[in-house]
């Protein structure tokens, strides 16, 4: 094959392989940069249907603080988070989302690597250590009456969760509202 043909063939192969990766099972094919299709914050959607809705976090980057902790000690991390003055000052929105990411669970799911942070797009500058939310198909779990512990109780630990995400809306007065829980199973 001569050079021009070889190059055209290469481009064709690249396209076919890319298409194969694009249509792989589980890829919803969300274009880059679009926000995850989070359920709308209405009364109706806070009560998720029992069927698992697919929720995909498209490589959200968080800035915040991380520690490996027993799950019951997450309040320690919250205390530290509230003291991150510099981080809060760089917010570019009055009511940002706060994410709590749990991953690298211990065998018995009592410990995890926990990150509390803001989405980098809601921060003015994001020089802090970046934490990525593992990409994948997340299952939302309902938090009746805004009680996130009820959502936690619905996690099927036999299915070995890889990551759990809590999402809150932070009100200008500092309250955490509209809790949502998402879980990524193996």
């Amino acid at each position, binding site marked *: 094959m001569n050079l021009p043909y070889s190059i055209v*063939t290469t481009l064709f192969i690249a396209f076919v392989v890319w298409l194969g*990766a694009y249509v792989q099972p589980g890829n919803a094919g969300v274009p*880059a940069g679009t926000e995850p299709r989070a359920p709308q914050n209405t009364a109706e959607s806070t009560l998720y249907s029992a069927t698992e809705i697919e929720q995909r976090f498209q490589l959200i980057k968080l800035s915040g603080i991380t520690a490996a902790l027993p799950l019951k000690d997450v309040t320690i991390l919250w205390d530290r988070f509230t003291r991150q003055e510099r981080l809060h000052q760089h917010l570019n929105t009055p009511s940002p989302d706060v994410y709590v990411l749990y991953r690298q669970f211990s065998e018995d799911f009592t410990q995890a690597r926990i990150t509390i942070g803001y989405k980098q797009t809601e921060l003015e500058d994001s020089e802090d250590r970046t934490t990525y939310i593992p990409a*994948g198909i997340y299952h939302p779990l309902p938090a009746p009456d805004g009680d996130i512990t009820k959502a936690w109780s619905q996690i099927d630990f036999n299915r070995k969760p890889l990551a759990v995400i809590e999402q809150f809306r932070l009100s200008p007065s500092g309250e955490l509202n509209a809790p949502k829980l998402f879980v990524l199973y193996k």
Partner: protein
Amino acid sequence: MEFLNWAFTPEQLFDMESWIGDWFFILALGLFFLELVCYSVRKQISWNLLGDSATNFVTLAAYIGITSTVIAGFYLGVFMYVYEHFSLTHLPMTCWSILACLLLADLAYYWEHRFLHSCGIGWATHTVHHSSPNFNISVAYRFGPLDGLFPLFFYLPLAFLGFHPLMIFLCEMLVQIYQTLLHTEVVKKLPKPIEAVLNTPSHHRVHHATNTEYLDKNYAGILIIWDRMFGTFAEEQETVRYGVYPRLNSLNPVKVFFHGFLKLARQIYSAPNWSYRWRLLANSPKWAWDQEQKLQAADS
């Protein structure tokens, strides 16, 4: 096939890459030691061979020095920038994507390698790798000054396609690792089906040859099918003579590491005009060689 859907975080990919990279180097050193044992059994070991191998590792250190200080930060930055701002999509970080990425990284390797052989500026750095008269694992670690730069242009399209930069780097490394293992005379020929599809030590010996029928052949990384497809394949038949023309004949690591660029600089300095200078960079090293032969013929 469930495993294809396993998802990873960028940190996991990064950890995987460092882990594989580090341990593979240890493994390669072990294999090199075994090769040395083979050579000594066959009484082919010499001070020259050992000196050449030592030189190879010095070029490796120099290459790592340049790449990690000057190129690496810039490299990651460019990839992240393209991935964040210009990519078609963001592909999920699954095994499935890694497989696709690896296939394309291998194809990109083929073209990068072909590029290094087809133009003066590429050859100035890549000639270092080819300048050893020997062929063993240590030669795989014989690098030129800009060997870390040129992959940028060939792997960057993968970031544009939506593969995460860390996934691309992982695949780049896997191709590199596979390539490293090919640098040996100990393995003769592998079973036919393998030789048909995969790159093998036999195919790669041909790539390192100075025999005329073997010149500019077998650029492949993992899959030899690229060479077969694009018409750059040659089968190993007659005995390979390793090295470059003209022979370098030096064990001095500094000389080895810079000889490609030194030669290019000299050629550019003594070039008759600017269009000739440009062609020294863009045309094949064979072209420059032919011009010099013509000049010498005219002089005498």
